């Protein structure tokens, strides 16, 4: 992307000036080299979102932004509750996709000698890969209950403990989910998928904290050096894919019906207040709730594996977040508190301190922001800030962002060889697909440290700890 086309606001903020039919400016976060390296399409997609009816303040892109469909990946836009629209392009086909991080009372020294045993057991117990199914088969009535109650429902059924709920965004479920607006096809495709990891960039990783940036916040989060954590990255599985697919078509028709001018076919949308918009919002909540339930069941399976190998171990939920969502949130807009619909497509919610949505233990620190890196590098935990609330509706990045396509990655790396290379580096991995593994090669991603520095320096969120992988399972 050419920097000369952008207006520099600060070293880490760049404005896309209002032109043509843009209703608000675009704002891209990142240092010079990150923004320069971004595809031109990011600017185009940020500008297209800035044309959507009811968009508030600015159309945003996070430092890990890359070319998506409709919104860029790393795109954020808040919509006015009266005049705004809701778009599949702002959520994607894996609504609720996110990360759960579990914290243990184990250290690197405890787990390192047993990492192979642990990863082999996890790989056996957690269903991974194309077409994988779990053991929970829901009746139609149970499925509806799960869609409405998310993680709370699976915990009631014995897949977890009450304390887990406190540390899941939205306390594990969002009110207002309506299974009647989820198609029969979506419900059929769901069968047996709750508690499954999926494939692509989804993973389960055993990690240890190798660096602490902010001792005080780390302590409040209950994190310490060399502590073993587990991060689980996955979403709403085929249920979410089908809901996205169904409403892509419904909203394509709605865009024509309401005469909404869209710059990109993938930005099909409906007014929030229209019947199509309301139905999509309510169906989408089913997918979000399902994703919380999915990660909850996998967390439960993970906890069981740890207890088998490390009797007496404590495995608690540290935090669970989604980075693909459209949710109602309260934000200060022109010095007035307003409820707005925030779309985040590949962006983590990063609320600053004192928000009522945060658990009491974290409230004065800010929301934990978990950013997954590649399986060969590291991941980070940050905390949300008050400045981030002003700048970006409390949003941050969600990952490293790819720098190389899947096709190129497969030409450059082979799964089996990559697994051996990682093992030499002390990272033991198992996968359901060697070619899928090669596509996720660490070298196919941007340098996550640079993305994190940009988020930190822009003030969107502040670094707390860094984790290194010890063992990985991938679909």
């Amino acid at each position, binding site marked *: 992307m050419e920097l000369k086309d952008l207006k520099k606001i600060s070293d880490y903020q760049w404005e896309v000036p209002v032109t043509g039919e843009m209703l608000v400016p675009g704002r891209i976060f990142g240092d010079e080299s990150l923004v320069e390296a971004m*595809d031109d399409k990011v600017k185009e997609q940020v500008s297209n979102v800035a044309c959507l009816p009811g968009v508030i303040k600015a159309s945003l892109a996070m430092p890990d932004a*890359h*070319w*998506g*469909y*409709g919104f860029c*990946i790393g795109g954020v836009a808040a919509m006015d509750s009266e005049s705004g629209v809701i778009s599949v392009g702002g959520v*994607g*086909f*894996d609504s609720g996709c996110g990360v759960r991080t579990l914290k243990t009372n184990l250290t690197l020294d405890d787990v390192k000698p047993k990492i192979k045993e642990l990863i082999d057991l996890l790989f056996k117990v957690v269903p991974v*890969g*194309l*077409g994988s199914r779990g053991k929970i088969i829901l009746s139609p009535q149970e499925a509806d209950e799960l869609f409405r109650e998310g993680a709370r429902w699976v915990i009631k059924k014995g897949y977890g403990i009450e304390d887990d709920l406190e540390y899941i965004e939205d306390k594990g479920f969002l009110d207002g989910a309506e299974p009647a607006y989820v198609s029969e*096809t979506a419900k*059929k*495709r769901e*069968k047996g998928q709750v508690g499954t990891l*999926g*494939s*692509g960039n989804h993973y389960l990783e055993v990690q240890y904290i190798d660096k602490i940036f902010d001792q005080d916040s780390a302590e409040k989060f209950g994190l310490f050096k060399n502590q073993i954590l587990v991060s689980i990255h996955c979403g709403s599985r*085929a249920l979410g*894919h*089908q809901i*996205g*697919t169904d409403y*892509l*078509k419904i909203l*394509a*028709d709605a865009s*024509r019906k309401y005469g909404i001018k869209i710059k*990109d*076919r*993938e930005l*099909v949308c409906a007014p929030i207040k229209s019947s199509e918009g309301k139905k999509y919002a309510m169906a989408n909540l089913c997918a979000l709730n399902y994703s919380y339930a999915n990660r909850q069941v996998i967390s439960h399976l993970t906890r069981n594996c740890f207890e088998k190998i490390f009797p007496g171990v404590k495995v608690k939920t540290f935090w669970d977040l989604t980075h693909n969502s459209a949710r109602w949130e309260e934000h200060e807009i022109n010095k007035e508190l307003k409820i707005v619909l925030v779309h985040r497509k590949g962006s983590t919610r990063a609320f600053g301190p004192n928000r009522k949505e945060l658990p009491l233990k974290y409230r004065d620190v800010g929301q934990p922001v978990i950013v997954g890196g590649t399986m060969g590098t590291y991941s980070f935990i940050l905390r949300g800030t008050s400045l981030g609330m002003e700048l970006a509706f409390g949003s941050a990045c969600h990952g490293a962002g*790819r*720098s*190389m*396509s*899947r*096709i*190129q990655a497969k030409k450059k790396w082979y799964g089996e060889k990559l697994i051996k290379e990682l093992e030499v580096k002390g990272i033991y991995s198992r996968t*359901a*697909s060697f*070619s*899928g593994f090669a*596509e996720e090669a660490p070298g196919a991603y941007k340098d996550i440290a640079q993305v994190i520095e940009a988020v930190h320096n822009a003030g969107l969120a502040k670094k707390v700890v860094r984790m290194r992988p010890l063992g990985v399972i991938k*679909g």
Partner: protein
Amino acid sequence: MVKYGQFEHKADIGVRGYGKTIEEAFENGAKALFEIMVNLKKIEKKKKVKIKCQAANLEELFVEWLNALLSEAGIKNLIFSDFKINKIEKENSGYALLGVAQGEKFNPTKHEPKIEAKAATYSQLEVGKKGKYYIAQTIIDV
């Protein structure tokens, strides 16, 4: 003539089908889609599924077709390798097609699984005649 292929996208994968007719381009586009997930050569034609879809225009019909195949495969735990569309019909409100997909029950030890295709998107979606041949292409979210 190359019948189908994949094209580059930073995060996902593009699929493209070529054909002497639009129908053939759609059929080959479906092959490119399933090639993302498995090794097509390993699939036997043991089961047959009928696919029916309609959309406001040809581009959206192509996405409907691919997504209908993904839904059927997901629901019935099948994987397809062979596709046939009789004719794409023009209707008052757009276009419709009746097609058949053939394949078998998904077997991870036999089919060399790669990655899951979540959905066909409207991104870089194109259907039309390029030179002598028709093409149908779009980006698949994986």
